[in-house]
């Protein structure tokens, strides 16, 4: 059973599902709906989809407890494979923010704008990892940038569809590696951004940062070898 989302507008159609934007319970809302996978047995599909939605919702709630801003959750509908969440109104993805920051200014000017964002990214990932939340898909499209009423930078982490709770240095290292790769493909000055991210990361997750950064270097070396061979 699945009803049309009355009055909603489609934002994005991806490989895993569709996103809609509209009003729900009187609030600006984003709905993330997962596709049925016809090649899977219906019972298995229902089970796997339910698990993914649970993992995503759980990570969103746990991240808040870790002091990382995520959208407010309004409703979880397993029957229609939907997550109803707060629309972060007035936000852009960090990817778009970085690209827009580059328009019409020098690299130095761009860096001045981007630096505080880089520091904030490192802080939130550090807090996340200190609470053993692995994001699983840390790209610049999955971090939203907005400004508070007092013009402070606010970052909201989204898209926890691949997340899990685990105290694994390897998984945390991979999260950082994915972020570094994502930055490199977004912005030519990413090599200047990443040390700032790591600096903030170390501060926010001081207990584990040594082990995790060693893992990160390892994952990165493996990745480099793979690109050289492949």
């Amino acid at each position, binding site marked *: *059973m699945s009803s049309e989302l009355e009055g909603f507008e489609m934002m994005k159609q991806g490989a895993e599902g569709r996103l809609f934007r509209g009003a729900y*319970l*009187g609030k600006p809302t984003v709905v993330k709906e997962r596709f049925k996978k016809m090649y899977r047995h219906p019972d298995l599909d229902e089970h796997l989809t339910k698990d993914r939605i*649970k993992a995503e919702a759980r990570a969103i*709630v746990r991240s808040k407890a870790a002091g990382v801003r995520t959208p407010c*959750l*309004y409703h*979880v509908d397993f029957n229609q494979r939907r997550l109803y969440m707060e629309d972060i109104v007035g936000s852009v993805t960090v990817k778009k923010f970085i690209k827009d920051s580059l328009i019409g200014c020098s690299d130095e000017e761009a860096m001045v704008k981007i630096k505080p964002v880089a520091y904030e990214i490192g802080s939130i990932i550090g807090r996340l990892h200190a609470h053993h939340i692995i994001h699983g898909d840390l790209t610049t499209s999955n971090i939203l940038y907005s400004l508070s009423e007092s013009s402070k930078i606010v970052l909201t982490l989204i898209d926890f569809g691949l997340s899990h709770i685990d105290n694994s240095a390897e998984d945390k290292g991979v999260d950082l590696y994915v972020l570094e790769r994502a930055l490199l493909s977004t912005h030519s000055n990413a090599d200047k951004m990443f040390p700032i991210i790591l600096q903030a990361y170390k501060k926010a997750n001081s207990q584990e940062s040594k082990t995790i950064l060693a893992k990160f270097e390892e994952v990165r070396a493996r990745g480099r070898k793979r690109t050289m061979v492949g």
Partner: protein
Amino acid sequence: MGEVTNIVTEKLDPTSGLYVSMALFRNVKNSKVIKDKVVSGALQCSIIKPSLIAHPFQVVVAANKAAASQVFGSMVTKSIYTELLFNLSISKNISQSLMKFGINESDQDILVATIHAEDASNMSEIMVQVEGQVVPLTDLQNICDFNLLRKSYKISEDELKVTSLLDSIVSRIATSDFVSH
């Protein structure tokens, strides 16, 4: 939210075709009578302890979850009104949750919520039975007990640096059947 003479109404998930209406009463003299009528089913509504409600939206989200559970046949309590009360709680213990979010016989502040089809609220029928004073729902902010709420929903100080109390509560209500704290 729609508002007529201190009654706030909000549309729930369109799949359910239902609405929730709320009214807040103070200085109530006959809480025991009202509670008995609700328990016996003579009055169709949830009566909620307002000290545990930060904002009407908290009730809207719990009512919405109850309405959706009714549509899909997954309610865990006996009526949509006990389901609403149970949904307000992050505990899985039904009787404790109903006790915690329901009212005591001696309580003088009560929040009434009804779930109904469009333009078919039974709130006026309930209002004539409550011997008390109807006040705007915005008065909730004076009645609610911030520290009790924080404790009941297990919300840390770190969390309140990045989210409002209401958003934290609502996100927990939406996920309480599969996220533990």
